[in-house]
């Protein structure tokens, strides 16, 4: 594998390999005072962020640094449009500087695919428009595997995952659907019909408009962030109606099985898609997801760059 542009780039074996590698890395760092491996010494990783996302950028930065790579943060927000420098020009510049990997975050779907046509190094999609966010799906799968008592070599066969909310605009949902299908999980999407993409009937998922019906069968409930501007675009009538029908509160959590977990990619709208007490409860994996994000991104960079060193 040269790039990670889509969760669909990973075969079942490759997906499990990423999770196993993340687990190995985690184990080898456990108990160490200096959380650093020499694996990518001399390699250069560029974080090319056209869109603000402090948490994702820091996660990738930390991952690269813990593998001893040199990290360059290139915040290009708005610059492609305002300064007239195109993505292609930037790509050629990074190429000339000898970047081994470019981690790109961009508001336009498909930008990582374009970039991959112009640079020789590896391209990692760190979120492109409303398209995909494959490392988020990997860290979610890693979290699910750990929390459901699975271990190295295991996939997620038979796990019932319910993804709730704005699937239409969610790159997290798209990548999760693809990866969870690859790993053998059963996915149900729950959303108002306005927030489901056209064509979901051809996706490897079940679709429901009824959260209460889906909860009792769920091992994992993943709540998606709902942006308030969707209300003004009439995707749903009011915030209140949305959180009544699709929000996760403690009463709904009561319908879950005893071991079911609650996930959220963050940042959360507390009180909108998820109630505060749910977010802070023992079922919630939200903080864990952040920590797992670093391990999984280390695994991805290691497999893309380390393996070929």
């Amino acid at each position, binding site marked *: 594998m040269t790039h990670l542009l889509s969760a669909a780039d990973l075969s079942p074996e490759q997906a499990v390999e990423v999770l196993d590698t993340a687990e190995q890395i985690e184990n080898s760092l456990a108990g160490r005072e200096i959380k650093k491996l020499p694996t990518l010494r001399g390699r250069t990783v560029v974080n090319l962020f056209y869109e603000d996302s402090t948490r994702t950028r820091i996660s990738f930065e930390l991952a690269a640094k813990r593998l001893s790579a040199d990290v360059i943060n290139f915040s290009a927000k708005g610059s492609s449009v305002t300064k007239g420098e*195109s*993505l292609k020009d930037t790509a050629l510049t990074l190429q000339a500087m000898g970047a081994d990997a470019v981690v790109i975050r961009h508001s336009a779907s498909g930008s990582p695919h*374009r970039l991959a046509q112009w640079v020789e190094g590896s391209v990692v999609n760190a979120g492109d*428009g*409303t398209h995909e966010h494959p490392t988020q799906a990997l860290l979610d799968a890693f979290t699910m595997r750990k929390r459901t008592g699975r271990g190295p070599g295991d996939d997620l066969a038979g796990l019932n995952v319910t993804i709730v909310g704005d699937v239409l605009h969610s790159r997290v949902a798209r990548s999760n659907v693809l990866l969870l299908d690859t790993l053998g999980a059963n996915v149900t999407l729950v959303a108002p019909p306005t927030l489901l993409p056209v*064509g979901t009937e051809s996706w490897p998922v079940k679709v429901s408009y009824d959260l209460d019906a889906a909860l009792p069968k769920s091992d994992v409930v993943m709540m998606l962030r709902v942006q308030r501007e969707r209300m003004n675009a009439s995707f749903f009538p009011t915030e209140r109606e949305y959180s009544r029908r699709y929000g996760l509160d403690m009463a709904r959590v009561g319908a879950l099985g005893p071991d079911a977990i609650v996930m959220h990619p963050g940042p959360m709208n507390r009180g909108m898609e998820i109630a505060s007490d749910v977010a802070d409860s023992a079922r919630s994996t939200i903080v864990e997801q952040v920590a797992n994000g670093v391990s999984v991104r280390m695994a991805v960079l290691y497999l893309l760059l380390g393996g070929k060193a």
Partner: protein
Amino acid sequence: MTAQTEWLIKGLRPLGNDPVDLHVKDGVIAAIGQDLVLDNDIQTLDATGLVGLPGLVDLHTHLREPGREDAETIETGSRAAALGGYTAVHAMANTDPVADTAGVVEQVWNIGRHVGLVDVIPVGAVTTGLKGERLAELGAMADSAARVRVFSDDGICVGDPGLMRRALEYVKAFDGVIAQHAEDARLTGGAQMNEGVLSGKLGLAGWPSVAEESIIARDCLLAQHVGSRLHVCHVSTAGSVELIRWAKSKGINVTAEVTPHHLLLTEDLAESYDPVYKVNPPLRRGEDVDALREALRDGTIDIIATDHAPHAVEDKECEWAYARPGMVGLEQALSIAIMTLSDGNGAVDWESIARVTSIDPARIGQLTEHGQGLMTGAPASFVLVDPAQSQTVDPARLASKGRNTPYAGLELPGKVVATFLRGTPTVLDGKVTK
């Protein structure tokens, strides 16, 4: 004015029929016959094996001048058109300034005349500044030297039904036609490609078929109500075809065009995220392509129009969402007409090709000097095509300034050997004469 020349063209096959000789004199076809014998000193062109067609007429070309001469000029666009076999092109109004006054349309018309490779017929804007708020001076443009008969806000739909009704009514005074870019903008906000399974997968906002179909349905009813003439630009869906078929069966005065790319390409190409495939309306599904081809053959869709839309390199070599929609098409349209209107055994329906690329576009645009067929006394504006040759599309070698062709590397059938405009060759041996 260029001096008129006299030509004897030997052995061409008009519309693919039996070979004849053509005597061209004083800008018209002076005689057609077998083995014409004329004075020795006139220029002779051996057209053995070549098919003769009336000069092609494009009802939908973007020439970018005035305003974006870096993307195309009337001259470079005219060269591309002549090489494609065209003798007249309608230049769309979405220039900067917009072609919404007699002054701008006369300027465009004059530059075209000065270049002299094709007749450049300006399309007038329907509304001032393409803003969709009030009618432009349609009558002044019609009365100008450019004699505008086709009006369009192309690129933008005339969305207000009241305004559309008034536009349709108003142009009846001078036999004009409103060419509508059918797109309900409230259904296509942020749209990047055809709405469907693939747009969902690629995370690109979808342009649903119904946004085109609902406007076509509405406009056909408006045209019926006021008894006027409507032309539908770049029809792209099977549903639109059904609506136009219905409207024609009701006697509604509607004509329609399809672009070469909508006859050949499908939305799957968007999977590359290469904006060369980004166009408005977007490439659709295979079922739509099939319906469009059938509609072209049975006359539901009247004509092929290129929607030639050249762009500067930086407007295409970027992220899909930032790229401007559009493709160049003047130099390849005839090849695609040949591909679409051939039967399984390779026999080409040249009569239909003449109808959809010349005769009917000229009729819709009310051009009296074009689309007349190869007849004695008709203007000598025609094209000679070698059906045995093919062209492999090399973007770098296009006459258009636009490099945004979706056909790069494809081998397309047919080659324009010569184009004549009122008796003067604009293309000879496949090269522009000036």
